[in-house]
């Protein structure tokens, strides 16, 4: 068993885990954050996407022990929490506006992939949006309303008069 200490959504988290446990299972079973989902568990579908230092990463392909000391953002770190639970981030709100989801299973990964894109590209083209989510498989939507959501979020983020580029800072 190994001790792992990392930062999740701005808070330090420590846990004891087997070396073979993936970051995905650590987040779900040790940290108790169930918003990160297992889809294929072999790195194709993107349902388990989280951000490490702002970069979209597949948590099923990374061991928890490899994440020692890393700064991780999961879907629970996007939008309001605690007393502010129920307050949507801009990207989340855009997904609701365009109905960029159906069953909601791939949605956390999609939103984090969008977060990663919009943190470095504030005015993406439709092609750039499609490229950014091309590693996230959705079986419900045909992607159309997801692409609409991310373009809408980019537009709204661009219209904000504060300098905060990322939803993550809301937490």
């Amino acid at each position, binding site marked *: 068993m190994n001790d792992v200490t990392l930062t999740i959504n701005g808070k330090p988290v420590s846990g004891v885990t087997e070396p073979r446990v993936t970051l995905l299972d650590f987040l779900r079973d040790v940290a108790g954050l169930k918003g990160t989902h297992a889809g294929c568990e072999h790195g194709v579908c993107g349902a388990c996407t989280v951000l490490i230092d702002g970069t979209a990463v597949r948590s099923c392909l990374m061991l928890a022990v490899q994440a020692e000391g890393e700064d991780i953002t999961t879907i629970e770190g996007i939008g309001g929490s605690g007393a502010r639970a129920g307050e949507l981030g801009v990207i989340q709100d855009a997904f609701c506006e365009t109905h960029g*989801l159906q069953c909601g299973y791939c949605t956390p990964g999609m939103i984090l992939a969008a977060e990663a894109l919009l943190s470095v590209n504030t005015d993406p083209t439709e092609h750039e949006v499609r490229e950014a989510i091309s590693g*996230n498989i959705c079986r419900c939507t045909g992607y159309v309303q997801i692409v609409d959501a991310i373009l809408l979020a980019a537009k709204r983020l661009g219209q904000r008069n504060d300098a905060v580029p990322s939803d993550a800072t809301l937490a």
Partner: protein
Amino acid sequence: MTEQKYKFLSTPRRPVEDRRFVAGRGKFIADLDRPNMLHVAPLASHHAAAVINGIDASAALAMPGVVDVITGAELAAAVQPLMNGLNTPNVRRFPLAVDRVRYAGEWVCAVVAESRALAEDALEKIIVDATPQPFILDAEAALLETSAPVHPEHGSNLLLDRKFVWGPVDDDFDAAAHSLSFSVTWGRNSTVPIETFGVLAEWNGWDQMLDIWASIQMPKYADQIARSLDLPGNAIRVHYDVDVGGSYGVKRGIKHSVLVGYIARKLGCPVRLIEDRLENMRAGDAHGPERKFDITIAFDQDGTVRSMKMRALDNAGAYAGRAPFQLGKPISAIVGPYQINSVAYHALSVTTNKTVQEAVRGFGQAPTNYAIETAMDRVAEYLGMDRLALRQKNLIRKDQFPYLIPSGSYYDSGDYHAVIDKVLAAADYPAMLAERDRLRDAGMMAGIGIAACLEPSGGNSSFEPLLNQSNQTSTWMESCQVNIDALGKLTARIHTTSSGQGHETLVSTVLGEVMQIDPELIRITRPNSLESLPGNSPVGSRMAIMLGGAAARAGEKLKAKIMAIAAHRLGVAIDQLRYEGGDVLAHDGRRFTWDEMVELAHRQYHNLPDGMDPGLASFDIMQVPTGDALPVDDKVQMYPCYSFEFHLLLVSFDPIIGRPDIHSYVIGHDCGTVINPAIVSGMTYGGIAHGIGAALFEEFAYDTNGQLLTQSFLDYLMPSSHEVPAIQIVKHCTPSPHTVFGQKGSGESGYLGAPAAVSAAINDAVSSLGIHFEKLPIRMSAISDAIAAKTS
């Protein structure tokens, strides 16, 4: 158009479910933990067919954390075989293989351990002594008398062999100027949700109750588990407040649920089984139809299609399940949207040593639509006639509804020609043709795909008695309960799980419309199965019609009670009152407010009309409209409503590489009155994406040893955001006369025509080379190989 009639219906409104999902706060099966929960991992067969001589689990049982190993022999002695819709009692099926395995991946035994990882570790210690047996993979071969039956006790591989003749087929063929024959094959694929199937069962011996949480989409789920486990129906409590991470028909999970239900009861603690992706792909028993069509079609020189003979041979895999019924549902739209006078239909379903087939989006309709649309293209090609003109000539006209098709169903309503005209205008069809020719001139292969088809909706189960005469099922209800609490707020209860269809939005919107109350203020809950009214779950594209219908009718009953209270209070006749936004207005201007009404109903019995029950609650159990009779002379009214879709797309590809690029995709869609526009559009986009996958990428392919080759997402390819183009939906509304608001179904939209349309586009692109692709999926390797063979 009807849009202006409604305050909430058909207006752009945010689906209420979306908030929890974008926050990662859905409640999926893998998110549920119970104290002292045990985990199950099944051991899969390596053989396509084998006799099991013995299982040695002693080393596994000796491992720390391993609690039990369950074998098929133990299970078969303790539970009843899983339900089988046909009269094939000797095709017995248990959650684990008994005495022999019948497909590679079939569960041989199951380890129960303190964690899933420990259970998987223990699988490697189990020794199965098995003797390989001859196996069969091909459906035509399975039909041969010389082929060994997958179930020797059954005597053959034939599960279903039904011949129907509807109308004067021989006369129509004699009278027709021409006929042609061809064969096409729909490859074995599935909708493959991103969430695999999972189930958690917990037995409480003091209450004699089995609690079940599952990512389920299955009619009569609790009943089937109770029957298999020999438990009273009221000893099974299925919790419907589990979010299902996609299903599209496939999450049937009976074998998983009976297995964990048995283990939970045996061990007296909570037990969970979540498929991993490999288990989902090869042993989730969720493969879709694999169907070969042999079609002969009779037509005149002017393009009039008179009659069709269709033989459909389905490869059901190793067990019967509900798969053969997927040959029955398409009978409800066996002539598509066309005036075809007569049809001969031969439906065959056989067992093979492949994974078991289950229900998939459309329940067999998409393959049949692909066959019918291919027939229309072949007739046009034979006659040298424009494909579009041929369709327009044969389409049922607006003035012909209700239209009786040869197999006994009336199509309710439609205006197919108008939808097509709208699509042609929206797509700028002449410009699309010019672009195709420009691409061809530039050295590309380019083609336009066209497909018209129907989505039978409002699902009942008429195909069951039609294919199995001992089955007398004509009831296929859905229900809803509504309550107004003592503070005046509405809560509605729905009695099913949902897998992305937006049922909470559906019910709150419909109730809001009926009660004239903001849907945002209406709460929707999902009680467990013991607290629920009867229903049949979201299958057969039925919930807008059936759950929406039940919710509206329950609302109307509440409104009638409110009007009666108001009439009594105000001392006037009901017909002199008007309901307005929750208040009731008298003809003389007096207003009986919502708050007063709630006060009377909840606290002032003495002010209620004589004999009226207190409180404000209602419910409705609704039967499928038009579904009131069993088949007569092999004919029956199947689904009540028929949505129409018309697909038009432009594809091109390099002749050497063969990788299709969809330039533009326009669909015309008429599903009657729309409840929530974003939900209906989403269903349609997603259906088209599934259809593109079925046409170009997705297939459960087997090698000659009966091993599944495409068993991960690395080799079972699904469309990504690059393969699904921007899609334009052209909306049209022809209300159904059979439903409360004129709504029809849309849960299968897009998928029912996209495979046919994409296939047509590819075939149009290679038509100058005389190539016909006769099997889906049409992989890029097949395209480039076929072109190379013609041009080398």
